[in-house]
């Protein structure tokens, strides 16, 4: 199967007050269409940076990133924004919903930005809210929703334009175990329907929902493992022990 995401020698160096921090030291990664990849690693290993580069939120210092045949490393900021709008969906740990828009408006916003008609955007929003069990929350503002509800709205927002790739950065990091599990169940359902997902987490339980897990340390991918049984954390834990992550 053709990769929908491919990186070659991906490097990212941050400069802060003259001090260089090598966040990524040469990542070669390939994600197939409809694959569910989890990236694991300790804090500061560069997994979020990798996700930002895949999503075009930042530019690599060196190397290539190709998403859905778009060479992201060559695009300017506006082109990357357009790519995010149409091809990539993002979900963050802190939900990052727009506080002065209702749940419905938060979901419709990317659709409207992408040029969909308000009617289409509304239909898609309702469809998503229903599938996420939030149909009665559409008029509420983010501050009026629980953490789990906010994250579900964030997922709906990320999926409203039917992106080729869904990128998630610690999506359950701010949620309790039960709510986190509910969110992961939703993501699994979308994956089953053919959604490509790349998820960054440090939680083996969350990562166990993926098909493949990549283990990162100090800006490089040290190992990978395929998961055959969803929810089985054993292979992950053994890698963690083996790699001393």
């Amino acid at each position, binding site marked *: 199967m053709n990769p929908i995401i491919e990186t070659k020698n991906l490097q990212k160096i941050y400069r802060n007050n003259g001090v260089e921090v090598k966040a990524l030291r040469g990542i070669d990664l390939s994600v197939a269409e409809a694959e569910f990849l989890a990236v694991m690693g300790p804090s500061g290993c560069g997994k979020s940076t990798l996700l930002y580069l895949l999503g075009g*939120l*930042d530019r690599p210092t060196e190397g290539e990133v190709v998403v859905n045949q778009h060479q992201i490393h060559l695009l300017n900021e506006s082109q990357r924004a357009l790519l995010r709008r149409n091809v990539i969906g993002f979900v963050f740990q802190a939900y990052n919903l727009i506080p*002065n828009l209702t749940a419905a408006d938060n979901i419709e916003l990317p659709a409207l930005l992408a040029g969909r008609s308000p009617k289409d955007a509304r239909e898609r929003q309702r469809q998503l809210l229903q599938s996420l069990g939030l149909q009665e929350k559409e008029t509420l503002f983010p501050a009026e929703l629980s953490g789990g509800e906010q994250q579900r709205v964030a997922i709906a927002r990320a999926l409203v334009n039917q992106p080729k790739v869904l990128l998630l950065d610690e999506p359950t990091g701010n949620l309790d175990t039960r709510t986190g599990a509910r969110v992961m169940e939703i993501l699994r359902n979308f994956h089953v329907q053919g959604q490509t997902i790349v998820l960054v987490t440090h939680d083996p339980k969350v990562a166990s929902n993926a098909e493949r897990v990549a283990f990162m340390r100090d800006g490089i991918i040290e190992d990978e493992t395929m998961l055959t049984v969803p929810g089985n954390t054993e292979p992950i834990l053994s890698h963690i022990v083996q790699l001393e992550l």
Partner: protein
Amino acid sequence: MRAILKQAIANLSSRKLQIVLILIALTAAATLLTLALTTIHSTQGAYQHLFERTRGAHLWLSLNPALTTKEQIHRILIDLPGVEGTTPIMHTISGTLFLGETRLGGIKLREWPEDPMPIDQHILMEGRSPDPGERMVIVLDRDTAKAYNTSVGDIIEILTPSGRVPLTVIGLYLSSNICPATNCWPPVNYLYADAFQDLVLSTPSATPTGFYEVGLRLSHSEQLLEVLDEVEEGLSIEAVNLWYSWEDLQATADGATGYMNTLLLTFSIIAGLAGLFLMTNTISGAIRGQLRQIGLLKTVGFTNPQLRWIYTVESILLSLVSSILGLILGGISSTLILSSVAQIFGEEIITPPLWAFLVVPCCAVVLAVLATLLPARRAERQSAVEAMRFGPERPRGRKMHLISRSATLMLGFSETFSYPLRTLVTGLVIGMAVFTLTAALILNHTFNLLTSDPKLIGYDEDLYISRTGYISDEEIRDWIETQPEIMAYYVERWGRIRFEGEDKVYYARFREGNLSSFTFPIIDGAIFENDNQALVGYGHARERGIKVGDEIVISIEGERMTFKVSGIYRENSNNGRMLILPLNAVRKVLPDLEVFTYNVKLSSEANPKIVADALTAETNYLTEVTIPFTGGLPQDIQMAKKVMLGLSVIMSVIASLGILSSLWMSVQERQRLFGMLKAVGMTPKEISISVVTGALCIAMVTVILGVPISIVGIRILIDIVAQSVGFGPLQAPVDMLSLVSILPALALIAILGALFPARHAARVSVVDMLRYE
């Protein structure tokens, strides 16, 4: 206190851009205030200064040489009680001034006094005074020289009935007898005595030519009328051709710059309000952004009054710096802007009065305290626990739904309503600019309309003719009556009247001729039809409650006269406190009253210039013929237009700064939001558009609400001013087309103000935003 000061300075240094914006706005307000105070001081104080410096005369008498002699005048004046001193009795004649072949205009000539004048001393502004025995030289009045563009060294010619006499200009002088406005000409110019005698002697007249003029300095200026009565009693009423008081000169001086006071004061208040709103907005924004810090300060033991003081000290520091900058800029600009005013009073330079150095900072501090009241109260009320928990306050107010395809624009609108107080205050800052622009456009339109149709302000004449003493009344009338182009004319003479039971003297216009052929600006009633009727100026009518049909009792030269009011009219002079009386009626009291002014209406085909040239040539240039409104707009109006333009620019800049400040704070607070929007696919351009949309939204709402409110307010103001100056009720015309131009103008101001914050918002890094989650 040290802790408060330390915290205030720390706050200031952490918000450099906002501080600069506040400083600019407050400095603009302080500059305008300084300028206004300097203008008031320069017109009121400077004339007083000049009057005392030159030992000005309180009473000027113009006496008829045919009815009195220098000796008689001297005898009367020498022992007159209440008279501190007098000028020499100066023989004065009229002449016409030529420079090359160009006829410049009429002037009054006097002999140069041999000895320095004890009263009404002259300040030699340029050149020198004549040496004894020096002939064919002239010292020109400074205003004459300026108006006729002549300077020391030029050779001018004076035309007298016996021909042209060449004279070299050797000096320019100034006295308290200033005449900054052209309507009090011809000014007085001095010739050396010998040359003057030549001109007087060469006049082919059996009786002495011209008139004797003398200035009296009184011990108590309020005794002016008593002194005048004594003179008239001693010499006869007829011998006193004309008199005027120092108050007339003071009024002329005030009139030259009086409207500047009003305009500058009004707009310094408006600029001050804009500065107040800007400061309120910025401090309020700063407090909103510092709620966590406020919580911390409370935790470490800051009390509510101490917190209030932090922000008050901040504002006071800013206002003091602004007022110093304003005083400097106001001082510099006043020397530039008011240089013409300075020249009027013979001052080298006009500087802000000392008391301005107290008033301006005081006003600025009051503004600062007012600006801090509301936001500081909010800081006081902030719960330490809440502040620490939530950090910056969440947006308040209901939000707008995304109802259209243009999500970018809707986000801009939505943000506008998220911070209603900030939006309101920003709107008020912009509102000040809307008010100023609306005022400028309405005043401009009113001025243009009134000057394009002078009938509206009482000018229905095509020519004004003034005769000199060398031509008789009969000659001029004969000439006028034989001209086919002249359809109608009336004669006018000014005189003084008193209302029965009052001491104050007012001017009146005495008229006769084809009055019904002229359109006088009569508000109520009609022109008089017989000698027992009178027209009353709006100023008198308003103050005294005079109505059409009422009877008024006045006295002219002590003679009691009763008139029935036939109409109330708009009067441009003396705050509308004038009357128009039938000349015939006045002649019952003053049978020998001569007229020198003839106001003419021409046929529609006639060319006023050709008729004017024909008359001046026919009378050997011994008449002054003026065509109204040929020199474009009057100087006062031109200056007022420039002032309004300047104020509009200042207020527009302040409005732009207001938008910049407000959006900058908003962008700073919304960095995270812009990061989120970028993350979901919004391009930098779309983010910029959403920020600019917010600014445009505030500006457009302000224009839509502000223009109608401003129209109503300004029309009321103009009406009040017009009534208070005696012009009568005035519904200022509104040109809606020109007012529509405010919309794009404000849009431009909003875009300019929003550009920088929008650019900043567009550059927000998503990664940086996410990194600090």
